[in-house]
């Protein structure tokens, strides 16, 4: 399997909190023992509620969150990095290869820079171009790819709508020629009509340039339409992962099922059949023992409260962490 671009082995991200002066310091276990592999050129979806640790996982893969345990290995045609120990020039080089698109296009762009400067900034900071002409040529090329015209480049972000701003953010992430992009809730703040436009653009970029995407979203219907592969996250762990088709055809984990049924149906005649999930996601400081989902799972049994479910392969490429996956699927 040499066509894996980035893989996490037993990855954990912990944030220690200030203690009370005695006993052990409490620790937020944002990501706990995760194993994932993202294939080159794939569109990998990561879905979960707020507080599930999706953003932290995405950032750890960019070395933008501390890696407490385990390792993250990045391999492309030229380099091979181990992110938990990477530093100095290697880290600088990794920054060119891995980029992030943020959620809120209103907060991500400096209001005091023109669009041209915003897109050109990574080139200048990373010293990727040697002359102003070269920078401008590169900016124009990327802007055209993201459907921004030359007129737009002279303006400031306030003159743009949400969809246009998100296209500017995308252009900035693309300009350094990355191989791996983490798109963190990149369409969550957009209207549905614009959301479809941005999703189509991301898909087109992925098809044309072969960039590998880690697409983070809380919306399974968006994930279903854009991603090749989906991982479902709950309270710092991945509970189910499979190729998109398979996951939707053969949903096995009760949490994935609950997420799916919570999506409001477009059919006014099909109302109120959402399999309701009681309560809210527990605190990652003190996760429940056994299966972390047991406090909200409608099928939870004694075993779930004491024994941590194994991460196992149900069928080729379809992994799940649930004691009773076979009975439930």
């Amino acid at each position, binding site marked *: 399997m040499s066509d894996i671009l980035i893989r996490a082995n037993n990855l954990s991200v912990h944030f220690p909190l200030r203690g009370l002066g005695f006993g052990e310091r409490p620790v937020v276990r944002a990501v706990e023992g995760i194993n994932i592999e993202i294939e080159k050129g794939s569109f990998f979806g990561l879905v979960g509620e707020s507080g599930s640790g999706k953003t932290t996982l995405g950032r750890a893969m960019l070395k933008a969150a501390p890696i407490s345990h385990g390792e993250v290995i990045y391999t492309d045609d030229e380099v091979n990095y181990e992110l938990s120990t990477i530093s100095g020039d290697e880290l600088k080089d990794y920054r060119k290869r891995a980029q992030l698109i943020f959620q809120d296009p209103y907060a991500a762009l400096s209001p005091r820079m023109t669009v041209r400067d915003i897109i050109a900034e990574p080139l200048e900071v990373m010293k990727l171009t040697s002359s102003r002409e070269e920078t401008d040529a590169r900016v124009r090329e990327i802007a055209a790819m993201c459907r921004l015209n030359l007129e737009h480049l002279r303006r400031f972000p306030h003159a743009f709508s949400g969809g246009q701003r998100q296209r500017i953010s995308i252009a900035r992430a693309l300009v350094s020629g990355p191989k791996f992009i983490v798109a963190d809730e990149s369409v969550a703040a957009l209207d549905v009509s*614009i959301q479809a436009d941005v999703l189509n653009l991301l898909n087109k970029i992925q098809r044309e340039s072969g960039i590998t995407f880690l697409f983070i979203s809380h919306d399974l219907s968006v994930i279903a339409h854009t991603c090749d592969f989906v991982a479902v996250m709950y309270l710092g762990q991945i509970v189910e992962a499979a190729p998109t088709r398979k996951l939707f055809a053969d949903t096995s984990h009760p949490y994935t099922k609950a997420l799916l049924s919570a999506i409001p*149906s477009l059919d006014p005649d099909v109302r109120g059949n959402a399999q309701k999930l009681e309560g809210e996601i527990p605190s990652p400081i003190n996760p429940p023992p056994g299966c972390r989902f047991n406090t909200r799972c409608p099928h939870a049994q004694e075993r779930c409260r004491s024994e941590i479910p194994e991460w196992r392969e149900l069928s080729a490429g379809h992994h799940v962490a649930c004691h009773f996956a076979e009975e439930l699927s």
Partner: protein
Amino acid sequence: MTDSLISVKDLTLRFKTDEGLVTAVNDVSFEIAPGEVLGLVGESGSGKSVTAKALMMLNAENAVYDEDSQITLSVDGEDYDVLALRGARDQLIIRGGAISMIFQEPMASFAPAITIGEQMVEQLLIHSDMTRAEAKEISIEMLTRVGIPEPAQRFGQYAFEFSGGMRQRAMIAMALSTKPRLLIADEPTTALDVTIQAQVIELMKDLVEEFHMSILFITHDLGVIAQTADRVAVMYLGNVVETGTVRQVINSPAHPYTRGLLNSLPKLNDLEAELSPVPGDIPSPLDRPSGCVFHTRCTEAAEIAERCRTEIPLTTVGSDNHKVACHLASGEGKA
């Protein structure tokens, strides 16, 4: 028409700005019957929130209401001319009396330095003649009703101690404790996770039944509308372009914009379907297109483009009161 709880007629609202008068709402009419849920759908900038705020006269000082605009609230056999109400005392009826509102951002809707309980009690004291002790009792009862665990302890806590879903529940509890006839819910579930959204929708449906109140449900999510509304009004750039029952609008949309919104939604039962966005962006309200406001983005306007560019489409009424404002729909029996 006297059987409607609130009736909005020819509402036109402009804002005075440095760049001139900006039309935010243009000639909007709708009615809500007692116990009915009306969904108001549209993109950001379509004027949904401004319309809703007009019902409570909550728009900023620089709002100018057109002379023909008429909002009538009918409560207990009495009609109130909402736009003529002046002064805090007269406006009590539309601000928490017969109309309550839930806002989109539950974090920003509570005062951070006053306990949740104190805020709930305060408004009950204003709107009724109950004592502080009674108000506290009712508030705790409402918190229980919306499913907040340990309501008596929660009563004394601050907004930051609540999670997002709980804040929205507390907001609903607060809005309903005065027993309003109309609840305005402005994107009440947009900031919430789908699982919590499902809980909140369920809760709102139960409450409508229990209190027999009407809801004006504002959202950009047609899925949420399909699950909650009885009737739907679709807004675009300040205009209502289509109104009908939820089945009419979602199953046989008559306006190209409504069709565009539906086509841009990812559908779980058809993963192969291309997402087709409504092309372009919503124009600036400073620069409203002539003729049909939607013609700059309409993919179907090519057929009779000239007319769409110049002539404002009239609202035509189809079968079962399905209304649409589009040249293409009128006279062709499409509606």
